């Protein structure tokens, strides 16, 4: 097996050729935070939390979608990166309408956890209070755009794992939002199989089961990795 050797935070690590920088940082036990990344789904580097410094590069690189290369010298937790990560999380909170205390995902929310990880004790950016809607047209699930951080995990799991491609991103810039089907009410999209994978992988309370109320959502984001290993390697978690 071809390997590449690189240096992460002063530690030499060897990873299989084709591995991502994120996998290399994991091999070095460098805990690089991620929100949009999910094992089992293709990376999109939309959240920018996994940005790392690579010597010789004049820009920061997203670890999830950058290939590890021979001889790279990577820094994952410089003061600049820590500050940028905290700013990014503050911007997530300021950009949407995130009220942890009354959220279905309270205590099981990756954004809430990430605020702790990056040391966010308040937002230095004023809250935007955007006007967003709630799609409760599906008989089993609800999409609350107020809590969406546009990680696109739902888009990817539906396309790459379920093969239904119900979700997409509509509009541009600050108006970007998740759309179902051809920007229809979710409950009217016939392609939806009601499998619930999008709900399981959603890092916040944006997608949830109608039966869950405040702090009751308990998602299982390990689903895509499990299904992918089952399909690609015929390896099931109970074997």
């Amino acid at each position, binding site marked *: 097996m071809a390997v590449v050797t690189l240096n992460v935070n002063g530690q030499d690590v060897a990873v299989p050729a084709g591995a991502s920088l994120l996998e290399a940082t994991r091999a070095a036990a460098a805990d690089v935070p991620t929100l949009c990344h999910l094992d089992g789904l293709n990376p999109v580097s939309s959240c920018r939390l996994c940005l790392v410094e690579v010597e010789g590069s004049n820009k920061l690189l997203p670890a999830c979608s950058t290939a590890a290369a021979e001889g790279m010298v990577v820094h994952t937790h410089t003061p600049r990166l820590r500050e940028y990560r905290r700013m990014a999380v503050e911007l997530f*909170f300021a950009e949407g*309408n995130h*009220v*942890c*205390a*009354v*959220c279905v995902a*309270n*205590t099981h*929310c990756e954004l*809430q*956890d990430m*605020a*702790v990880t990056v*040391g*966010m*004790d*308040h*937002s230095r950016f*004023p*809250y935007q*209070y*955007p*006007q967003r809607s709630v799609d409760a047209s599906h008989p089993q699930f609800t999409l609350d755009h107020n809590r969406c951080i546009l990680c696109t995990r739902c888009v990817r799991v539906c396309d790459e794992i379920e093969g239904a491609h119900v979700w997409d991103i509509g509009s541009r810039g600050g108006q970007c939002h998740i759309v179902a089907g051809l920007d229809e009410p979710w409950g009217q999209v016939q392609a939806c199989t009601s499998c619930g994978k999008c709900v399981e992988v959603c890092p916040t309370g944006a997608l949830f089961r109608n039966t869950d109320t405040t*702090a009751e959502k308990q998602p299982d984001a390990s689903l895509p990795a499990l299904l992918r290993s089952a399909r690609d390697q015929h390896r099931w978690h109970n074997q």
Partner: protein
Amino acid sequence: MTPSPPAAKLRLATVWLAGCSGCHMSFLDLDEFLFDLAEKVDVVFSPVGTDVKIYPENVDIALVEGAVANVDNLELALQVRERTALVISFGDCAVTANVPGLRNLLDGGHDGAKAVLERGYLELADATGQLPFAPGIVPELLPRVLPLHEVIPVDLYLPGCPPSAERIREAITPLLAGERPVMEGPAMLRFG
């Protein structure tokens, strides 16, 4: 040999702006620690500890619960800043505007006060409904509910809805010894 005079006690205030008082209830959940606290501080202003109506001068530490939602909240917040050495944003409403801030979503985010008043006092009222108007008596709502730090400089943030009694104790114990608490990790920082 005469005992040395007791060291001057710190002057502690707790303030209740636009919040549900849950942070103060959590403060009272400190239980027997409140006895230890009482030996080290004089509570000079607090809805749960004194009957003082005017915020005093020369306060050392203030725990400020709640967002800034009306003109009374604003006036008191400014007094707190002027008369207090260390202001703590106490709980999610003070830190983020939290649930009181949800009215900022109404009326396109421009004047949530007008929208919420009309809903509460006119649309849901019987034929005799009217908007409250009593200048100087009923404080007027600000157009937008603000976190405390958007109104005055804040020295320490103590998030949580409410912050647990343990978190409050871990935050104020170092302050009593003149040190800053380390606000890191899920025990000290988590919102909600």
